[in-house]
């Protein structure tokens, strides 16, 4: 078995159009990296190389496979034609964040079970929209479908001849056909696994991928009166002005400007070229590339798209934590949130003094 790791980075943006325009949702930048790069980089670290299937190849250190047609089936079929002598494909969804140990789990489970392949099984109660995995003796995959609360976790190790099945079947149908004749092991995964399905899924992601160490690039400028409480990453060309307080984990992207007297609280990400004006306060939020946060604004549990302009004195209201105050939680797509600010689309302009109610813009 020679393994070809393959990240599926394509797909329609759907609700992410507000943030990524025509680009797939996996192209959203979080912490200086596109979403799919978290999987691609982890796979490169393990396997030395990675194939990335996408309609929009970039100049990054991966082997890009230009995706034609629609759906993951076409993406896999196309990618397969690019492979060399590899016998297996380690398939990973670009919009799923999982600890890298999960990839090793897949390979080891397949080999230990003497199986032809393996699928990552993740516990989940709300299974709608996912492929549920039913097992048979020995932890082998019986079928996709049914009442199981273990879902397909967006990562699978499959023999190359599996790909042929995809010509006339969907991915799950193909898995069913394959599991009927070959041995596919299920690899249960109880660790961190996060699917970025909708824009609101970005907020928990900020916690999963947060910096765990402090790094200040040599070309960054941090004023002597600024206070940095780690872990904080400050990238090349960034500037943190006087009396700013940065309480990690925080990511300050390349060439961003953090104004004086700002309070940058935990799980804040300012992407490349963002500007945060004097005395603004930000927590648990993603500030997109080149976006501007005007002076004295308060941004919390929010996502601000690239090139957006939030004028001075804008407040995003989020809601108090459950138990402290009896407030009604916010419901988005059937899920309840006790803390949710606003989604401000790319290139949008929020007028000065606006107060955005909790949960604005996510629907």
């Amino acid at each position: 078995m020679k393994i070809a790791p393959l990240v599926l980075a394509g797909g329609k943006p759907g609700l992410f159009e507000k943030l990524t325009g025509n680009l797939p949702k996996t192209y959203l930048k979080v912490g200086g990296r596109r979403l799919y790069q978290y999987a691609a980089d982890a796979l490169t670290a393990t396997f030395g190389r990675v194939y990335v299937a996408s309609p929009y190849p970039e100049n990054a250190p991966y082997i890009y496979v230009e995706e034609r047609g629609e759906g993951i089936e076409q993406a896999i079929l196309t990618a397969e034609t690019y492979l060399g002598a590899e016998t297996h494909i380690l398939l990973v969804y670009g919009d799923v964040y999982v600890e890298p140990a999960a990839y090793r789990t897949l390979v080891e489970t397949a080999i230990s079970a003497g199986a032809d392949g393996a699928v990552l099984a993740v516990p989940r109660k709300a299974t709608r929209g996912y492929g549920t995995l039913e097992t048979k003796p020995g932890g082998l995959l019986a079928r996709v479908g049914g009442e199981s609360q273990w879902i397909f976790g967006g990562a699978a190790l499959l023999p190359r001849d599996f790909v042929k099945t995809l010509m006339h079947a969907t991915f799950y149908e193909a898995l069913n056909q394959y599991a009927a004749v070959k041995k596919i092991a299920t690899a249960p995964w109880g660790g961190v696994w996060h699917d970025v399905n909708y824009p609101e899924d970005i907020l928990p992601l900020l916690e999963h991928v947060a910096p765990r160490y402090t790094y200040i690039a040599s070309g960054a400028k941090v004023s002597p009166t600024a206070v940095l409480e780690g872990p904080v990453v400050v990238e090349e060309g960034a500037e943190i002005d006087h009396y700013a307080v940065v309480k990690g984990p925080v990511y300050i992207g390349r060439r961003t400007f953090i104004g004086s007297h700002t309070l940058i609280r935990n799980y804040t990400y300012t992407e490349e070229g963002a500007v945060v004006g004097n005395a603004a306060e930000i927590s648990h939020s993603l500030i997109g590339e080149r976006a501007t946060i005007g002076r004295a604004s308060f941004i919390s549990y929010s996502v601000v798209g690239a090139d957006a302009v939030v004028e001075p004195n804008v407040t995003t209201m989020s809601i108090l934590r459950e138990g402290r105050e009896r407030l009604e939680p916010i419901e988005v797509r059937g899920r309840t949130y006790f803390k949710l600010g606003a989604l401000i689309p790319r290139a949008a302009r929020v007028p000065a003094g606006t107060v955005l109610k909790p949960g604005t813009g996510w629907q």
Partner: protein
Amino acid sequence: MGEILRRALERLEYRGYDSAGVAVVDRGLVVRKDAGKVAEVATRYGFDSLQGVAGLAHTRWATHGKPDQTNAHPHTDCRGVIAVVHNGIIENYAELREELAGRGHVFRSETDTEVVAHLVEEYKRQGLDTFSAFKKALSRIRGAYAIALIDAENPQVMYFARNLSPLIIGVGDGFNIVASDIPTVLDYTRRVIAVRDGEYGYITPTEVYIEADGVPHDVASRIEEIPWSAEMATKGGYPHFMLKEIYEQPESLATTVAGLEWRTLETVANALLSARNVYIVAAGSSYHAGLVFAHLLPRLKITPIPIIASEYTTYENLFDKDDVAIAISQSGETIDTIKALRSMRERGVKITAVTNVVGSTLSRESDVVIYTRAGPEIGVAATKTFTTQVATLAALFVAALKALGYDTAQYEHELKSLPDLARKTVENTAGTAKDLAKRLKTRQSAYYLGRGSAVPVAMEGALKLKEVAYIHAEAYPAGESKHGPIALVEEGFPTIFVFSDPATREKTLSNVAEMKARGAYTIGTVSAKSDIAKKLDLPIEVPEAGEITAPILHVIPLQLLAYFAAVERGYDPDKPRNLAKTVTVE
């Protein structure tokens, strides 16, 4: 060679750890083995200084024969020329052994493995070369196995075979390795071939040969490159042993049910029925398994006396020669249980041990032993060993009913369907348990309530949460919760009800209402077909099961909950602080 074998054994210790041994070919066969952990045996017998061109090593988890020097692997033939190690069970070993003994072969151990060495010896004596003799031997054995064999008269070759037990080959430069799992070979090579069921063959320092049904298989195309080191490798593919052990409960229950020795159960059942007093003595999870059993005994007109092992002195004056005790311990080495047992023995109490470890102190010092067949459990928190204990004791209850002349067909069917229902339970409750774990992770405290035989299930659930997630959890009989504990309940207080006992459902429901009225967040394990679900804030639906197996199914989501809560809180569930797998201090 000796050092390579020792290091490989240390990596394999999670597969069993009651005895260890090595064999090397160096101008003849040298075998060193004994009972004990790898490090102990290796130091005692100087494994590291052994030289040779080929070597075998094994760490054992006893299934046939107690762990001692003779039963430790490798096993040899009569002349001490052939050595074999084996993982799995050879089902027809008894008849083969008889046949070979009839032809003059002398057996030293009680193991199923030894027949392989003698079979090969026998066929070699009939004129076959070693490989042909090995193949012919394989055609005679039935069961699950991964086998490796060396022959000092053919020193550069190692023979192997796989059927249902894992086996891989590490392909090196000028050497080759056969092993049970991947991490074992990663220190020496990253190139690995997974041997499939029904395949066999041999390795030499420069060649790997595999065939199945007499047809050679291509080897080169099957070499897999493992890009990570042994240190990075996972535990047989699982992030934690605890998850592995929860996930494989359908398999361990299937093995336990299939391996029930009904004749022994019958003997014990008769003793229970005619005893003056029946004691159930155990500690921790084993005690909870004993309590589940204790709840069944009044149905046989038996008044059980459950004793927490460390508290046995309170009952010492009762112990007498007409009494019977069931002593339960996974490891068979729990000091509290052994102390209690010795006190009982001195006073003439007949002891039946329920243990997972063949040849353990508990099994040696008891009159009758019933083994659970959960396999080695590495996670400190008991999971599969608890459920197999409950299943084994349920079978004992069935044996007693049978002895009283009742029709037990329905119960026996219940036991048979248990593995499949357990699989369904692991599948259908994991997501809910994960969601609940996220909710519980910031909590300080929780209640686990039930009535009847659900009380010990609640106790076991609470113990798991305490052990691995470090959240204070208290189990109570639901009706008793009004007498004090309810004072703590405030808005959002998590209260987990166990609805495994159908006889007490209605009454437990009134406790749900009481808790709810005080703002508790009510959770419950409920049978999938019942309408109780609607009355709870969060129902966890478990497949419908009969009364003797329901406790097993209902504990599974509670195990999953504790595991996920530990992971959510950032703790390692396999190594909880302050706890040891086997408690050997008073």
